[in-house]
């Protein structure tokens, strides 16, 4: 279930591509896997309705929702029902702790967010004054800004202003005017692609020329159409690199480029693909395990009752190690992802300001276990 409508649809569109690519890659193998795509919208109510609809169907696991805000609303419904939920983009603190059936492959903000502040400091060692914007009506943004602010203070930087916005906001003239009076060297944004993209555009139009670091919510090429040429230079920490030289990533990039042309796949697409891959590999292991136990050569999973299948899948999923486009990942018993590799990208727009790419900075941060 991903956001195909509303202000998070820019994230959902990336995720949809990842799920469809994974279905084409893994759907034909045994055990057969198919995706039932539901629009979870960008609000809790739509997500809840979509989740309940899916729970009434014979699904083995749920991937989604797109927003942490939605995850806090819908995961407590799926968990008691004993349906494994694998978050592919939820990064707010506290999501795997919702229940034993909730896990995620999207690294938490605490691991990723500080990297872009550190990168900004490396790019401008004289950097001292930092302004922060965050969407106060969004769980991911409020969670991420705490990490950002802690990281800013940890590096000895001065937090000059904290501006609260809303994900529905599109006009930021007033908070920008207030912020520019504080003369920041760096502006840090936790928002979604649409509001965040508009904020970046208006910051540049109002004359701000310093560094801008954005959070995971804006980690999508879909921001290009919103902030256009003003996206250039934006720093965003990444949990995925299209340049990773592993066989599984090369295969994923190849699939993506075959469908979408020569562009590099974005993080949300890679995470959605990896989520499907994890479920597929866990089901494959379960199938093998059950076949051995029942000494049946095929259809071992088909003989299991659905609640039993879901329970067994959840257990085996959390025990495995997976070689995904995100690198090697595994889970804590609580369902939190353990990922080794993180990066920081700087958005580079083309001369016309129509499209761009996430260019990885040369010194990727060391692994954060």
């Amino acid at each position: 279930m991903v956001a195909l409508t509303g202000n998070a649809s820019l994230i959902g569109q990336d995720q949809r591509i990842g799920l469809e690519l994974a279905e084409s890659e893994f759907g034909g193998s045994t055990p057969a896997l198919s995706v039932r795509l539901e629009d979870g919208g960008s609000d809790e109510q739509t997500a809840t309705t979509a989740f309940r609809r899916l729970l009434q169907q014979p699904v083995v696991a749920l991937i989604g929702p797109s927003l942490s805000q939605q995850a806090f609303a819908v995961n407590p419904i799926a968990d008691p029902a004993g349906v494994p939920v694998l978050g592919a983009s939820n990064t707010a603190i506290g999501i795997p702790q919702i229940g034993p059936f909730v896990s995620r492959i999207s690294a938490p903000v605490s691991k990723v967010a500080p990297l872009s502040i550190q990168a900004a400091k490396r790019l401008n060692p004289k950097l001292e004054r930092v302004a922060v914007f965050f969407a106060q009506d969004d769980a991911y943004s409020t969670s991420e800004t705490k990490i950002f602010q802690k990281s800013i203070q940890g590096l000895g930087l001065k937090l000059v202003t904290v501006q609260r916005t809303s994900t529905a906001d599109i006009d930021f003239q007033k908070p920008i005017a207030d912020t520019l009076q504080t003369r920041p060297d760096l502006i840090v944004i936790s928002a979604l692609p649409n509001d965040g993209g508009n904020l970046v555009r208006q910051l540049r139009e109002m004359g701000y020329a310093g560094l801008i670091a954005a959070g995971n919510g804006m980690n999508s090429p879909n921001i290009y159409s919103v902030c256009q040429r003003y996206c250039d230079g934006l720093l965003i920490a990444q949990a995925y690199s299209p340049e990773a030289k592993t066989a599984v990533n090369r295969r994923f990039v190849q699939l993506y480029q075959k469908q979408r042309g020569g562009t590099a796949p974005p993080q949300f697409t890679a995470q959605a693909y990896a989520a499907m891959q994890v479920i597929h590999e866990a089901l494959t292991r379960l199938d093998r395990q059950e076949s051995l136990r029942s000494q049946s050569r095929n259809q071992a999973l088909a003989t299991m009752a659905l609640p039993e299948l879901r329970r067994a899948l959840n257990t085996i999923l959390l025990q495995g190690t997976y070689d995904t486009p995100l690198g090697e990942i595994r889970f804590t018993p609580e369902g939190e992802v353990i990922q080794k590799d993180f990066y920081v990208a700087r958005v580079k727009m083309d001369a016309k300001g129509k499209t761009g790419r996430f260019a990885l900075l040369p010194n990727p941060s060391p692994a954060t276990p």
Partner: protein
Amino acid sequence: MEALLQLLFNGLSVGAVYALFALGYTLVFSVLGVINFAHGAIFTLGAYFTYFLIGGAVGANGLMAGLQLPFALPFWLALPLAGLGAAAVALVLERIAFRPLRDRGSDPLLALITSLGAGVILVNLIQLLVGAESYSIPVETLESLPVALSIAGAKVRTVQVMLLAIAGLLLAALSIWIDGSRSGKALQAVSEDPITAQLLGINSGRMIQIAFGISGFLAGVAGGLVGLSVSIAGPYFGIGYGLKGLGVLVLGGLGSVPGAVLGGLIIGLAEACVPAELSGYKDAVSFGFLFLVLLIRPQGLLGRPQANKV
């Protein structure tokens, strides 16, 4: 002084859009006594029309994916044409969602519900045709102008100044038309009492159509202008403005044209006064302010108290 000027610019540029939006509500309310809840959808359509008329293409989603007009108009021409397109849709709405009920003498509350339904259908139709993604009018559209202006130390985006100027011009033109022209006076007569106006030889039905047409035009132009200033954030783009416009309508006084202008500017300025640490609560502050005003003047700032016949 610089801070005060900055606050004034911020408040007026936002307030002018609210005023333009609320005027559309006001015009329809003044002749029909109902709020047209489809007004936000017409505003959204104006933004999309402008985007497509300047040569924008439909994105990857929706039934019209990839489509693009064979020509690209300059923004200055696209904006009034988008306004006319929005006016045409408003007239169609009047024909199918309002007139049948009016002809049957139905309760005005029913027209309110049909307008709400028409608005929802329009928004869903937009989504079906062009998808839910956001669209942006290219930043190069105003390339010949500086991106921002510095006026006595206060910084303001050129597009906001333009928005304020066009909104001001439209508001002035509308006021002159209402007070200084024969048809404007006829509209006032219909808003006072449609039956008496009809007896005096005024075609009430025609005046209602004119009110809808102008209301749609204002919404379309406002949508195009806001779309130029920020991205068009999907089919639900107009909902936030619709809610704020309702607040402005009530604050200014239901059916009062100067009240809509004053209400818009006051709400815009009230939002601009919200301090940074409370900036996320600006809607609560502006609606809280509205609540306080209504406690003292239930008829709104420039509205007339309602006299009930006994």
